[in-house]
């Protein structure tokens, strides 16, 4: 009984316990100076591990995005390669054969093959000896309808114009500099038991990647450059013939405009249907580049609005077999750009046996406005953005490689086939990396641009809805 009561006394609360509890209630002890540094290191390591996982995912996302972009561009370019053209004299002969005004259409094939170009008239032509004149004028309106059928049969590839398609963490984020990385200094580590903290290999790697946890900047400004594939997206306009014919027959003194054996007045509407011929300029995909300045504002935790001002130049090669002599006696290739002019100004259409290789350049001032949603906001940030780009037309230049034909330059105005302004829809992904210890970030941005309206005027012979796949790079300064 005695033993039991003694045990009970010892295992139950009494004055001893109460005094002891009171003694330790307000007890304090001073931790060693490096304890916080170790905790901080642990927190940083933990964050580093999280970032490491995130970065791994984003690396794959970025790699996949680049792969898709490159594949897309490559496939687009592959399918946009100009198909072999059969612009032989035989084709032209067929044209002449169908033309009643060309009795001597039985031109010796071999002789014609030796000729570089076939002209129809005019000893005052500026074309050199590569351009050999033929015996007959072929007025623009004299192209017979059945020529198209024949040429389509003979050279189906030549009709492809309308069918073209492109398509670490810095471990001590908020530590004062004197504390930052103190744990890396061996002398600051007093206890060998803590060494394991520094053995993690990921920390060093991630030092390069993450410094600040969040971007708190409200405003940034920068410069950007991008380049990529460009598809002018020309297609036939349904009402082009009627307009051209109407203008030509009512507003023009055709006989004074057109010299030659065939009067413009005599051409029937059917034969004037230029849009069904395959002699028109054949566009190939090209490249686009932009350079400019931009700025962005934060409007929410994850949303920014971005705008800027850029110079944009889209260039693409093309080929044609036709050239025209204008009333001003200049000889220029017949292109999309001056297609409308032919109904008003040209004197005749001439055919070249050799393809005339052209380079089209479309210059714009571009003002994009985009909204971006930031999926990841860290030193390595990722955003999806969408918006509209307003493109103000500066000029269109068509240059050729021969010295015999003059270049074409189209400026904005009533005579221009292009609208003064057209709009692009823009979709892009932005990947930015904040440079360590600086307010600068670098940016890479794959984007897809598609015209929301026609680049050409509504009543023009052709519609054009350009599209581009661009890869941009930029440098930004963040104002905190």
């Amino acid at each position, binding site marked *: 009984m005695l033993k039991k009561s003694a045990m009970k006394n010892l295992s139950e609360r009494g004055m*001893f316990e109460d005094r002891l509890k009171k003694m*330790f209630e307000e007890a304090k002890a001073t931790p060693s100076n490096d*304890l916080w540094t170790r905790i901080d290191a642990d927190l940083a390591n933990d964050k580093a591990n999280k970032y490491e996982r995130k970065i791994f995912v984003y690396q794959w996302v970025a790699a996949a995005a680049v792969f898709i972009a490159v594949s897309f561009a490559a496939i687009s370019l592959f399918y946009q390669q100009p198909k072999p053209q059969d612009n032989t004299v035989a084709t032209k002969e067929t044209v002449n054969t169908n033309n009643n005004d060309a009795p001597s259409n039985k031109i010796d094939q071999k002789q014609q093959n030796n000729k570089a170009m076939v002209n129809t008239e005019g000893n005052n032509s500026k074309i050199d000896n590569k351009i050999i004149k033929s015996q007959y004028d072929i007025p623009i309106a004299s192209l017979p309808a059945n020529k198209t059928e024949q040429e389509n049969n003979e050279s189906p590839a030549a009709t492809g114009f309308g069918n073209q398609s492109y398509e670490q963490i810095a471990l001590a984020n908020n530590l004062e500099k004197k504390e930052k990385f103190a744990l890396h200094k061996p002398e600051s580590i007093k206890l060998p038991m803590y060494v394991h903290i520094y053995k993690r290999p990921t920390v060093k790697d991630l030092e390069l990647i993450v410094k600040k946890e969040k971007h708190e900047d409200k405003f940034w400004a920068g410069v950007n450059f991008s380049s990529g594939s460009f598809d002018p997206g020309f297609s036939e306009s349904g009402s082009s013939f009627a307009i051209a014919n109407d203008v030509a027959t009512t507003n023009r003194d055709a006989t004074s405009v057109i010299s030659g054996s065939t009067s413009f007045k005599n051409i029937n509407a059917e034969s004037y249907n230029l849009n069904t011929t395959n002699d028109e300029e054949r566009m190939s995909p090209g490249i686009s580049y932009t350079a400019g300045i931009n700025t962005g504002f934060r409007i929410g935790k994850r949303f920014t609005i971005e705008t800027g001002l850029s110079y944009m130049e889209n260039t693409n090669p093309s080929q044609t077999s036709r050239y025209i002599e204008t009333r001003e006696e200049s000889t220029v290739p017949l292109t999309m750009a001056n297609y409308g002019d032919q109904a008003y100004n040209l004197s005749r259409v001439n055919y070249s046996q050799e393809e005339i290789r052209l380079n089209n350049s479309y210059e714009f001032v571009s003002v994009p406005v985009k909204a971006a949603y930031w999926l990841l906001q860290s030193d390595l940030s990722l955003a999806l953005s969408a918006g509209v780009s307003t493109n103000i037309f500066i000029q269109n230049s068509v240059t050729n490689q021969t010295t015999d034909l003059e270049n074409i330059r189209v400026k904005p105005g009533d005579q221009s086939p292009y609208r003064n302004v057209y709009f692009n829809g823009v979709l892009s992904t932005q990947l930015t990396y904040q440079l360590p210890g600086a307010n600068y970030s670098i940016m890479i941005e794959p984007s897809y641009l598609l015209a929301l309206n026609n680049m050409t005027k509504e009543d023009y012979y052709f519609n054009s809805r350009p599209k581009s796949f661009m890869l941009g790079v930029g440098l930004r300064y963040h104002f905190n």
Partner: protein
Amino acid sequence: MLSSGIAMHNENELINGCIKGERKAQRQLYELYSHKMLAVSLRYAKSQPEAEDIIQEAFIKVFKNIESFRKEAKLYTWIKRIVVNTALNYQRSKLYLYPMVDVTEMHDMKEEREDILGRFQMEEMLAMIQELPTGCQVIFNLFAIEGYQHDEIAKELNINVGTSKSQYARAKMLLRNRIENAEKERYEKFK
């Protein structure tokens, strides 16, 4: 002992800052509670480095889980519970709890000697507690200072209630022996 740079005095601000992962807030929280928590940890540890290891691990848990802190309890109490649990986990592998001690060894313990504590400083008591066998030390802390009941301790440590009681009794007996020895030494010194 707070650093002069502390700007956030409001506990809610501090908690919100920690939830956002702001290192400044985390440091301020550490500065605010580390001294008291280290004193708690020292009671469960055998040395200061060991106690600091416990504190390190405990504060990492605090920062990782602060979102789950319900403001029904005091922040101090919540952090202390984490420190104690961390200390228990830390010592768990070292725990060897005797099932029962022989009660006959304790029959001559007298209740009237309990005022003996008044003559000792906290540091001396802490040193004596640290010298206890790990099992006794843990149970002594939980019962005498944290105020847990034996059934709670038994549940926590997955032992019998009787084991908890006997371990506590043993701890108390050992402490008293040491206190008596220390008193004797003092007496000899001043003699």
